[in-house]
């Protein structure tokens, strides 16, 4: 319980640091502070998709319901965090480009990614037989994850985009020391939130399994 309370205080400190300690980026000003939330949200999304894919592989190796549950749960978390990253990105776009959504390559690729993972849940809901559903969705999940690096990292960089890559570009992180400290602290904090949510869901799953067994 202690680490959870520490996490709560830590996120509060990171939030204050993002607004008070870190300076605004050159050219973007205070708007750049959204990266301390937008990028960690996207990072947790990608991390959850990765864990989902790893559990899908584990399921195909050893068909255990536990792995299937972990794959589904992580795909859900990934989708929720991707939606939140898209919303924060759209808020940034509204204040810099003038519109929330303009089908920029970055926005289009994240939209396709969300559709791919939404299709994963459609696939699952369309198969009633439990074993078939788990096996087919595990195969789909592995292929879906192949699209993640393509849609998040590669395709948006092949086209001209309004997305402010200069902050985190192919040449590395172009932030000053204070910005970097808050940025990595935020990444760590959001990963902690993901770990907490994951542990809650696993505990809930185990309770439901025990109830079913009784």
């Amino acid at each position, binding site marked *: *319980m202690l680490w959870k309370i520490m996490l*709560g205080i830590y*996120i509060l400190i990171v*939030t204050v640091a993002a*607004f008070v300690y870190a300076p605004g980026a050159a050219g973007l000003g*205070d708007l750049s502070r959204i990266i301390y939330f937008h990028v960690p949200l996207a990072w947790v999304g990608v991390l959850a998709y990765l864990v989902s894919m790893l559990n899908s592989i584990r399921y195909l190796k050893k068909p255990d319901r536990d792995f299937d549950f972990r794959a589904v749960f992580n795909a859900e978390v990934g989708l929720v965090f991707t939606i939140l990253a898209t919303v924060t990105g759209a808020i940034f776009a509204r204040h810099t480009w003038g519109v929330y959504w303009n089908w920029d390559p970055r926005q289009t690729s994240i939209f396709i990614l969300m559709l791919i993972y939404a299709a994963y849940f459609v696939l699952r809901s369309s198969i009633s037989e439990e074993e078939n559903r788990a096996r087919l969705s595990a195969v789909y999940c592995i292929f879906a994850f192949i699209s993640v690096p393509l849609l998040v990292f590669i395709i948006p960089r092949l086209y001209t985009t309004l997305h402010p890559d200069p902050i985190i570009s192919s040449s590395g992180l172009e932030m000053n020391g204070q910005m970097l400290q808050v940025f990595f602290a935020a990444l760590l904090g959001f990963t902690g939130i993901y770990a907490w949510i994951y542990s*809650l869901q696993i*505990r809930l799953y*185990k309770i439901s399994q025990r109830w079913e067994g009784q």
Partner: protein
Amino acid sequence: MMSDLYIVLTVCMISWLGIFFYLLRLDRRIARWEKKVK
């Protein structure tokens, strides 16, 4: 503007506190269920 920045900061902090206490309450509830199921 500086005051706008503090408004956004306050909204972010209140939002996080809301999420945090929700997760904490859920955690305690799950701990109670775990004791019941054991």
